[in-house]
C-alpha cells in the first residue's frame, strides 16, 4: 500500500506522522521523503547509508557548428528557456522543463541533451525502515523531477509511506500521484482549516481516498472537526497538544520511542489505514 502524508499548511506534523507511522509498521516498510526542498525525516531515523545517487535531468545543448540560427527551437519553447541570437541558439537551464521539444523540432540535428544535476537520493537502512531521502540542490527551482526520482525507488512488495511537501502545487501533486491513500495532517486553527480545504480539493481532484489527522488538538477550536463531519471526511486520529511532544520533536526524537503512552495512537492509525486498504 502506498500512503502519502500531506497537508495544505506547512508545519502541521507530516514528518512527525510519517516517521512515527513508519516506526509502528514494523518489518520492511519504506519511508520516502518527497519533501525534497526541506527534507527532515532523516533527522529522526538514523541508520547506515546504502546508496547515494546523483539525480539529473536532461537539458539541451546547442552545437553552434550545426546551428543555423533558424529560431525554430526558441519559437517552440514554452518556457523561454531557448533564445536565438545572432545565428545561434542559447539555452537557459534554470528555465528548462526538460520536455525534449527543442531537440525534436530542430531540423539541423544541432541540439543534443546532456545531464544536468538537480540533487541527490540517498537510501538509508534504518532498522526495519528503508528510508529514501531526496535532497534538492539549493538554487534549483523545480522539485518535481526529483520527487519522481525518489518515487522510482518504491519497491512494490513493501508498504510505502511518502512524506509529502506542504501545499497543493506541483511537488505535492507529484508526490501524491498514484498513491493508494492520502493522510492529510492539519491543526485545529483558522490557518489549518483554510489550507486543509485546499488540500482536500487537491486529493478530490486527483481521485484518491483520504482521511484527516488533527495534530496539536486543543490549541484552537473544533472548526476542523465540524468541517470533516459536514464533508463526511474520516477523522483518523487526534494527537493532543502536548509540550512533551514538541520538545521530543525539537530534539529529533520519535514520539513512539520516547513517549510510549502515544504508541497506541500510531498503531491505531496504522490499523485504520491497513483496514482501508482492504
Amino acid at each position, binding site marked *: 500500500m502506498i500512503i502519502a502524508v500531506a497537508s495544505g499548511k506547512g508545519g502541521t506534523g507530516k514528518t512527525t506522522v510519517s516517521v512515527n507511522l513508519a516506526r509502528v509498521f514494523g518489518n520492511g516498510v519504506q519511508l520516502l521523503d518527497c519533501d525534497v526542498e*526541506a527534507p527532515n525525516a532523516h533527522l529522526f531515523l538514523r541508520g547506515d547509508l546504502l546508496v547515494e545517487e546523483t539525480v539529473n535531468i536532461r537539458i539541451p545543448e546547442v552545437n553552434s557548428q550545426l546551428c543555423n540560427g533558424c529560431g525554430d527551437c526558441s519559437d517552440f519553447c514554452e518556457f523561454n528557456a531557448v533564445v536565438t541570437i545572432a545565428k545561434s541558439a542559447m539555452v537557459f537551464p534554470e528555465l528548462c522543463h526538460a520536455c525534449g521539444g527543442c531537440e525534436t523540432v530542430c531540423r539541423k540535428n544541432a541540439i543534443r541533451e546532456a545531464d544536468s544535476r538537480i540533487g541527490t537520493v540517498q537510501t538509508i537502512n534504518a532498522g526495519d525502515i528503508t528510508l529514501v531521502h531526496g535532497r534538492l540542490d539549493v538554487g534549483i527551482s523545480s522539485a518535481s523531477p526529483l520527487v519522481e526520482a525518489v518515487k522510482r525507488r518504491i519497491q512494490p512488495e513493501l508498504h510505502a509511506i511518502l512524506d509529502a511537501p506542504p501545499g497543493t*502545487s506541483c511537488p505535492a501533486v507529484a508526490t501524491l500521484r498514484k498513491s493508494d491513500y492520502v493522510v492529510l495532517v492539519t491543526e485545529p486553527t*483558522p490557518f489549518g482549516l483554510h489550507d486543509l480545504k485546499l488540500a482536500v480539493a487537491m486529493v478530490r481532484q486527483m481521485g484518491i481516498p483520504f482521511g484527516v489527522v488533527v495534530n496539536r488538538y486543543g490549541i484552537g477550536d473544533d472548526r476542523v472537526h465540524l468541517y470533516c463531519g459536514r464533508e463526511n471526511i474520516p477523522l483518523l486520529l487526534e494527537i493532543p497538544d502536548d509540550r512533551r511532544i514538541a520538545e521530543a520533536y525539537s530534539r529529533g526524537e520519535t514520539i513512539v520511542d520516547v513517549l510510549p503512552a502515544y504508541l497506541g495512537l500510531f498503531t491505531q492509525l496504522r490499523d485504520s489505514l491497513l483496514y482501508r486498504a482492504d
Partner: protein
Amino acid sequence: MKELVIISGKGGTGKTSVTASFAALAERPVMADCDVDAADLHLVLTPEIRQRNDFYSGHEAVIRPQDCINCGVCMDPCRFGAVVEVDMATNGASFAIDPIACEGCGVCVWLCPTKAIDFPERLCGEWMVSSTRYGPMVHAQLGVAAENSGKLVTAVREMARLLAEQESRKLIIIDGPPGIGCATIAAMTGASLALAVTEPTVSGEHDLERILSLARHFGIPVSVCVNKWDLNPEMTERIENKAVQAGARIVGRIRYDRAMTYAQMQAQAAVEANAACAADIRQVWRQLEL
C-alpha cells in the same frame, strides 16, 4: 522603497503570524502575500477585495476526440506521462491528456499528424488587490496542481511595487512561502532584506541552513529570529550561533505563546491582541530598523 521578505525553509515556523504583526507596526506598508499555494495572511488582515484578476500562464494540451485517429504517436514522447489511454466508447478517442500531469510543453501538439490537439492558455489561479486596515494588500490563490507558482508570485510582487510607487509607500512586507523552490526564489529575488523565522528544532535548524544558503546565492542580506524559542533554549542558541557563522544577523527571539493562536482565531495580529509574545515581536521589528 524597501522590500522585506519573510521566509523560513521549514513550514509552520510563524511567517504569516509575524507578517501580520509587522503590518500593524509598520508605517504605511504594502502587504504582498506570496505564499500563493496556501495563502493565509488574509485570515488575519481581513482584506476588502477591490480588484480580481485571472492569472493565465502557459498552456495545456487537449485532444479533440473527433479528430483523433488513435495513432498513439503523442504518447511516448511525452516526458510527463500526461498522455493516457482511455475508453474509446466513453471518450470518443483512445487517448486523452491528464491536465494534472500536462506540463504545457507542446510536444504532442507539434507531433500530432492530424493536428487534433488544442493548446489553449491555462488558467492557473487568480490574484487580488485589496485594502486592509494597515494598507493595500496584494494576494493570490494558485489553482490546484498548477504550474507557474513562481510567475504568480512575480505578478503579486510587481503589483505591490506599483501600488507602493503610486501611493508613495516606502515598505513592502512580503509573506513568503516555505521551502526553497521556485515560489520562494521568486518571492526573494531583489528584496532589500530577508527575515528568516525559524523554530528551535532539528528540522528548523536543518532547513534554516538551506534557506540561508539560498539567500547567499541571491545576495540578499538575512536577519534571523527564532520563534517559540523557549521550547528548546539550547537549540535556540545553537541555531543562532550557526546563523551568525553563516553571515546572518540575529534580530531577536519570540517566545512560545498560545495567545498567538487565540489572536489568529480573532483575526488579530499578536501585537493587536496584546499577547505576551507581542513585546518580543516589537523588539524584532525595532531591530530590523525599517
